[in-house]
């Protein structure tokens, strides 16, 4: 008896003849965002963990100083969107590979999708509505450029 095994990566469903081939664009996205994320995350890790006193220097004043600059705001928002979509698409691949039950798979993918959307919205709002000098905050907890009340 001879069993024929599909070639690796043979899709469950053939790519649609018409319209957008989402799996193809997902594949391209993983590679394109991955290359950008290497730069963004290595820069993030270097500035936060290597420069100065590293992790022990991180506090509200440190983050306030960084996020008061549009440069770091956009850096962090780009990282947020690219990394969460990259990560949740990767998790979707794992569910497709390992989930044996369609219902469980759909629930897991739904949970991944919802958590990605919620965290992208939350993170974006935080970055752009953040006030580095909140009223009434103790002066020793906020960045040195904050006006002393």
């Amino acid at each position, binding site marked *: 008896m001879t069993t024929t095994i599909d070639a690796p990566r043979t899709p469950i469903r053939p790519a649609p003849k018409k319209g957008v081939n989402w799996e193809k664009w997902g594949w391209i996205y993983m590679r394109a965002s991955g290359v950008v994320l290497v730069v963004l*995350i290595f820069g993030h890790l270097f500035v936060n963990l290597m420069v100065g006193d590293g992790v022990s220097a991180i506090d509200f004043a440190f983050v306030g100083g960084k996020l008061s600059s549009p440069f770091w705001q956009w850096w962090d928002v780009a990282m947020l969107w690219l990394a969460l979509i990259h990560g949740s698409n*990767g998790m979707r691949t794992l569910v497709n590979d390992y989930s044996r039950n369609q219902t469980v798979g759909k629930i897991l993918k739904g949970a991944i999708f919802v958590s990605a959307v919620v965290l992208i919205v939350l993170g974006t709002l935080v970055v752009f509505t953040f006030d580095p000098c909140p009223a009434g905050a103790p002066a020793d907890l906020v960045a040195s450029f904050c006006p002393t009340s």
Partner: protein
Amino acid sequence: MTATVSRKSQGGSFVSLKTAGTPPITQSGPKRPAGTLYRGREGMWSWVLHRITGVAIFFFLLVHILDTALIRVSPEAYNAVIGTYQTPIMGLGEVALVGAIAYHAYNGLRIVLIDFWSKGSKYQKVMFYVVIGLWVITMLGFVPRHLINVFSH
């Protein structure tokens, strides 16, 4: 029962996936499965590590967005939570995190080269050891400095 598949790979060479699935107990031809291109070799372990590090980074990312969101609550709330990242145990966790990120980054670039560079699949094995080498260099640069920051404050 034999399971034999031949396909033309992107690189142009024929790949025999004789050992896909469970190897048969009795087999005509060679006693052992012919050398596998993939299973148990650099290709497989790089893929396994890529998945494990990817999942680990994903779950850290979920937590990390939530803890950073506390800057919108109050300086006290953020400092209380970030203080837990500055303990010795979490300091060691950050070594593991940076190790996972560095591996995932370098191996991801290796995957991009395998997919888009005409000689990528030919050199995938060499590139895996380049990934390991770059990872060791990165960790040698990061770990001592980070541990000094963690343990001297």
